[in-house]
């Protein structure tokens, strides 16, 4: 999931008795499966939760370019390099669609960017992990984009129209990325012993961080219930995590790689795998800014913003000048 620990109203689900007539009418529209559009009335909590979630999702696309961009100059073949470039370009586009969707809620992209840069808004915990070898490009595509798809496919039916339409666009491209990642893993897992060891090492390092992408366990997820009542969120964190494990373990088997979890076992009764919980302490530390790359990632984004200021201003000044000249000529 690209949006984690999104705070909703801070209270539990609003009961029918506490609802104003507007709130009740709004909830009826949601329950009837109607899409909410930007000019419609919506509760302040709904608007805020969506700004946080879509904004965080957009930030994740942008920050997510850094761990992969790290390998562009070092990709092992020209074909892989071209694919990686196209993928990173797609992520920029996804960020753009999502900022656009968030802006329909009455916040500007620059405002959201400032909030990312000074740490008031978050991005996905996964991008605070380093990409140490080429095999990590495979693991990120296969596992990280795989987890993102698991979460984003149901979001195509989310109640806020602009968000659901952005998801439809993004899911299509995201599934290209997952296939590209799996293809890298296949090549490496079936390559030399050293290549296979690299693939295994990448899986070892990215397995639990990928499981964390779905957010904390349902029992600790205080804001989920309201988000689900508003149909901003369609499934619980644990549901999606289970689905991801059930889908991914057979793919690891196919690669001849071992999922780094002693407790992983097929459970015929529930028709899914039993598996270990990720280290939630680590998760909360990463979200607080204490993961392996948090400082680097934010420093890179801040440097790009600050050093690019004169270019942004220059383009604006040029546009103003052209506009003035055109008006004078008319």
């Amino acid at each position, binding site marked *: 999931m690209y949006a984690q620990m999104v705070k909703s109203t801070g209270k539990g689900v609003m009961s029918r008795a506490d609802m104003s007539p507007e709130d009740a009418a709004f909830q009826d529209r949601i329950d009837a499966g109607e899409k909410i*559009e930007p*000019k*419609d009335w919506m509760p302040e909590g709904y608007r805020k939760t969506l700004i946080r979630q879509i904004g965080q999702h957009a930030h994740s696309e942008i920050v997510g370019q850094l761990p992969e961009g790290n390998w562009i100059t070092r990709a092992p073949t020209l074909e892989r390099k071209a694919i990686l470039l196209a993928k990173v*370009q797609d992520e920029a*586009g996804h960020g*753009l*669609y999502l900022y*656009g969707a968030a*802006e329909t809620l009455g916040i*500007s*992209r*620059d405002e959201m960017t400032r909030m990312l840069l000074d740490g008031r808004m978050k991005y996905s915990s996964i991008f605070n992990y380093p990409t140490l070898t080429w095999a990590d490009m495979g693991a990120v595509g296969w596992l990280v984009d795989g987890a993102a798809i698991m979460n984003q496919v149901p979001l195509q039916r989310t109640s806020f129209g602009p968000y659901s339409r*952005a998801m439809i*666009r993004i899911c299509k491209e995201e599934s290209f990325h997952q296939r590209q990642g799996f293809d890298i893993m296949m090549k490496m897992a079936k390559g030399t012993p050293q290549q296979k060891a690299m693939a295994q090492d990448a899986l070892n390092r990215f397995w639990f961080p990928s499981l964390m992408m779905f957010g904390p366990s349902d029992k600790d997820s205080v804001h989920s219930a309201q988000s689900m009542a508003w149909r901003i969120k369609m499934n619980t964190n644990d549901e999606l995590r289970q689905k991801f494990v059930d889908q991914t373990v057979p793919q690891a088997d196919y690669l001849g790689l071992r999922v780094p979890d002693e407790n992983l076992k097929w459970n015929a009764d529930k028709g899914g795998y039993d598996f270990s919980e990720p280290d939630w302490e680590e998760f909360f530390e990463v979200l607080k800014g204490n993961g392996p790359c948090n400082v680097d990632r934010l420093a890179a984004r801040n440097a790009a913003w600050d050093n690019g*200021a004169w270019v*942004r*201003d220059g*383009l*604006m*000044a*040029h*546009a*103003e000048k*052209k*506009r003035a000249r055109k008006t004078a000529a008319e």
Partner: protein
Amino acid sequence: MKTEWPLWEIFIRGQHGLSHRHVGSLHAADAEMAIKNARDVYTRRNEGVSIWVVEAEAITASSPSDKGPMYDPSESKVYRHPSFFDIPDDVGAM
């Protein structure tokens, strides 16, 4: 000076499309840059052959609460749907 780039709405006509469809929005300093970025973001996979960009500020939208008063009356105006005239067979195809 205002430093935030304005928002542009993007419309694309597909290869075999009859009309331009709204596909999304983006920020750009001017119309030229908006066209260039729209080409990169929205037509990378042959999605279209023609791009329109419009500054979002220039668009006025109807309000969702007007739905009833705006569109309902057209249902009662049957004379707008001329599908019920009897044309004699002798006249031929019309």
